[in-house]
């Protein structure tokens, strides 16, 4: 009913006839919310990348990369900071509760079956933190019968060696799948420095992990259990010119999620239980350890024809072992929500959501949202909708902000925001072509943003900053289904994110936030002819200021990547070989100040898939 901004899925998806249990209830409730799903063909081509690399290269989101592949990568969504976007796996937050942000370099695309971006203040739909947006990833989208296998091997410049293996088997009521991956890169690329060059030191990265997932379905019930264990060891890439650093970081993440869906006579009952263990060590330190248990329950029913009502809540208990927190720091959080969505008229969908969050020691506000989709033209060849969303959102203080010794401020208030956005969406198709286009304008007002300022002998976070954001996003895609097939897609984002506060820095008032590019644009051209395919992506990130008075800046940069692929098909089997050139123009650029990025580099990838349906 509501327009999901899906770019049309490619025909050549290998997994056929899967019975898909809807990945998220939210496709029904997102009237007004801008949703974008990364299509499966692009996911396939990006299999050896991290989620951070894929989002930076292909979407309007700006990802700050603190160096080459494997280094910390955090997101800026609609002019906000990395604290304002939550990353959720199977509906569970996997941001670091201590830092309040997610590191997208540690999310391998190889594991992902769905990536959905919810732009805008969708706090009411998802809970705390989504002032800028919400990124949902799913590692399992449905039940598959029969045996399936996938094997991937990539080798590339600077010691890149990525391997992935997956196996799945589904029979009768059971579907079990397992995936394992190992990715490493040395990152010893040449760095230009003072008229000569040297090979980048101390930037190697290695990550490995395993994902096990089981689905059991019986009649009206379905159980899904997933366990994901991930490890990441990396040297921390130093500033350009520093050839003596030996700093490193190690992460261990264990994520477990159990979900139950029960189709009752009058509604759908969903329950979930998750346990997340995040551990991180810097050099030889004692590390930070955070353990969370989250339980959730949701009930969905239809009170009237054409209307859905969903209500539920989550409860979370968190414990920590962090040397710099007051000992035995623990915290509970809970939220309850109500979503009502339906067709007010045949040409208008509305959604109203109300959410209340409770957190130990923190007063969190109500976050309501109201959105509507107007279908101005609904036909076979052209559909045209107008979406609007108004919402109030918040971002809860992070554990570091509350509990860091010295300086943590247990009285820190949550950041609050109000946002409105409106957009026009077009989709059309002809005999052999289809296209989509959208234009969205948004405004967000954020207040009580926390800034660390000196307070006596220590630094302490205080709610002082106010930021006003406005911008435009435009997206378009055009696809030709003839022979050769051709698809062109692109997006352009304009964001002005202006600090309103003269304290603590008077010269920062009225200026763009640091590391929020005003312009970001991407163009992709994908063509395929018989067994050959060629994908070129041109990704441009505009100038970014590196400090808040806008007196220092990093130039904009353009990165071009080209991938040539060849496919061999047999009954039930497919082999794809890919040759890729990254940074085709050998641009000498920095995403983050003084962190070198590699010039032109290459990779070769082989991907094998087997699918035996019963």
């Amino acid at each position, binding site marked *: 009913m509501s327009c999901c901004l899906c770019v049309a899925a490619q025909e050549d998806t290998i997994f056929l006839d899967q019975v898909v249990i809807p990945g998220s209830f939210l496709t029904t409730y997102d009237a007004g919310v801008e949703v974008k799903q990364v299509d499966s063909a692009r996911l396939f081509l990006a299999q050896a990348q991290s989620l951070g690399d894929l989002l930076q290269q292909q979407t309007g989101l700006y990802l700050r990369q603190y160096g080459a592949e494997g280094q910390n990568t955090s997101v800026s969504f609609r002019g906000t900071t990395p604290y304002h976007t939550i990353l959720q796996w199977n509906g569970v937050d996997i941001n670091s509760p201590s830092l309040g942000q997610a590191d997208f370099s540690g999310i391998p695309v190889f594991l992902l079956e769905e990536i959905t971006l919810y732009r805008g203040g969708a706090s009411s739909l998802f809970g705390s933190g989504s002032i800028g947006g919400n990124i949902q990833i799913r590692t399992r989208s449905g039940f598959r019968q029969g045996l399936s296998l996938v094997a991937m091997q990539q080798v590339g410049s600077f010691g890149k060696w990525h391997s992935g293996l997956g196996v799945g088997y589904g029979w009768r009521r059971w579907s079990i799948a397992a995936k394992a991956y190992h990715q490493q890169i040395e990152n010893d690329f040449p760095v230009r420095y003072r008229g000569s060059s040297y090979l980048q030191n101390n930037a190697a990265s290695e990550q490995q992990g395993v994902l096990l997932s089981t689905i059991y379905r019986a009649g009206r019930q379905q159980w899904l259990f997933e366990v994901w264990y991930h490890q990441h060891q990396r040297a921390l890439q130093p500033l350009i010119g*520093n050839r003596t650093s030996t700093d490193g970081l190690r992460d261990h993440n264990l994520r477990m999620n159990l979900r139950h869906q029960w189709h009752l006579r009058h509604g759908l009952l969903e329950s979930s239980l998750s346990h997340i263990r995040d551990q991180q060590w*810097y050099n030889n330190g004692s590390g930070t350890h955070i353990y969370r248990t989250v339980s959730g329950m949701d009930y969905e029913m239809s009170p009237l024809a054409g209307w859905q009502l969903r209500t539920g809540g989550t409860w979370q208990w968190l414990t920590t072992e962090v040397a710099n927190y007051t000992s035995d720091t623990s915290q509970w959080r809970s939220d309850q929500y109500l979503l009502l969505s339906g067709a007010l008229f045949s040409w208008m969908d509305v959604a109203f959501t109300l959410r209340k969050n409770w957190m130990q020691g923190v007063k969190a506000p109500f976050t309501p949202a109201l959105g509507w989709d107007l279908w101005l033209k609904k036909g076979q060849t052209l559909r045209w909708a107008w979406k609007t969303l108004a919402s109030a959102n918040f971002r809860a203080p992070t554990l570091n902000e509350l509990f860091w010794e010295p300086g943590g401020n247990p009285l820190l208030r949550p950041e609050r925001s109000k946002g409105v956005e409106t957009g026009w969406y077009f989709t059309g198709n002809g005999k052999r072509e289809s296209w989509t286009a959208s234009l969205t304008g948004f405004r967000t007002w954020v207040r009580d943003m926390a800034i660390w300022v000196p307070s006596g002998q220590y630094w302490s976070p205080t709610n002082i900053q106010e930021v006003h954001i406005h911008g435009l996003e435009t997206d378009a895609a055009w696809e*030709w289904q003839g022979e050769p097939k051709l698809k062109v897609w692109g997006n352009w984002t304009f964001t002005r994110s202006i600090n309103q506060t003269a304290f603590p820095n008077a010269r920062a008032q009225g200026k763009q936030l*640091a590391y929020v590019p005003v312009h970001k644009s991407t163009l992709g051209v994908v063509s395929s002819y018989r067994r050959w395919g060629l994908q070129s992506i041109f990704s441009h990130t505009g100038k970014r200021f590196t400090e808040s008075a806008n007196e*220092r800046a990093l130039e904009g940069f353009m990165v071009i990547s080209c991938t040539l692929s060849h496919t061999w098909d047999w009954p039930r089997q497919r082999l794809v070989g890919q040759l890729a050139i990254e940074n085709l123009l050998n641009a000498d650029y920095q995403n983050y100040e003084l962190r070198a990025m590699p010039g032109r580099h290459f990779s070769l990838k082989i991907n094998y898939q087997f699918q035996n349906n019963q």
Partner: protein
Amino acid sequence: MKRNLHFFILLSFLFWVGCKDQDPPQVLPEVAGVVIVNEGNFLSGDGSIDLFDLETETRQADVFQTKNGFALGANIQNALVHEDLLLLVCNATDKLEVLDATTFQSLGVVEEGLATPFDVAVAGKYAFVTNWGTFNSETFAYDDPKIVTINLTDYSIVATLRVEIQPQHILVVENQIFVTNVGGWSSPGTTVSVFSHQNGALSKTADITVPAGPDRLVTDKNGKIWVLSTRGHLVRIDPVSREVEFTLSDVPVLGFNEKMTIDPSGDRLFWLASHDEANAVFTMRVAESQVGAALVSGSNFYGIGVDENETLYIGEHAAFQGNGSVLRYDVGGATPQSLETLAAGRAPNGFLFLK
């Protein structure tokens, strides 16, 4: 036809992007003025030096980058002008940058053999650099502090002297080298070490016992050495007898990385302190024995300097939220008169006055 379209789009983008020409580095006129030393944000490598021309009242930001065409890429802890050289002691990346003091052109750099260098002093052709040592993430302390001697004619390391306790500031007075041993946060040092040197090799000649946490040193018009300590003491040392002549306690101070300066005539001391949950500048003439009320109060004070016209310069760091400023006061009269504030880089922590 559609395949050609793909290649056409690819080619047209290649032409559009093209090559960007590098702008040649701007040549600066040789001016007399104030060098504002901006520390930069910790680990961000955005330390810089600005040149403020006193005659034209104009500021050139980041003269290292504009003159040399590449980024400094480090935090600047301390800077020194010695004859026609400008020395920058940098952390993260640990190095000593040597520039021409009038043109700011890079003459040489020492990038190896230093471990969290902090301050520098020059005697003849030798630069002596105090080093805190290597940071230990288990103990949160610094291991293996040392003093490194560098030959300024060829930028080679001549000698490395391991010391027992974290050294802070260093000063050459006549033929002796004085080093304050500030120590660690929980176990402050209590001595000022005195060294002599032979072709750059240091040998200790005395340890002067002082109150805990000796940090900043300056010399006055009478040739005496004043030491400000992190625990709130101001001490006067005679460099010839190597004895403490005068001790003042309960002095308001910052508590860490003290900032103190003396006016060019060597008569009046100025230093920063934590005061009333914010900051203040205190002053005392060398003939006096008591500290009066705060001279100037404010927040986020991070650097201090005073020129021959009795203009006080205070670096203000704006909570490290972007570039900071320099507050200026005329302190020649009975009460300080506020002058025009200057823009600065990130966290201005010091000033060098060029003739």
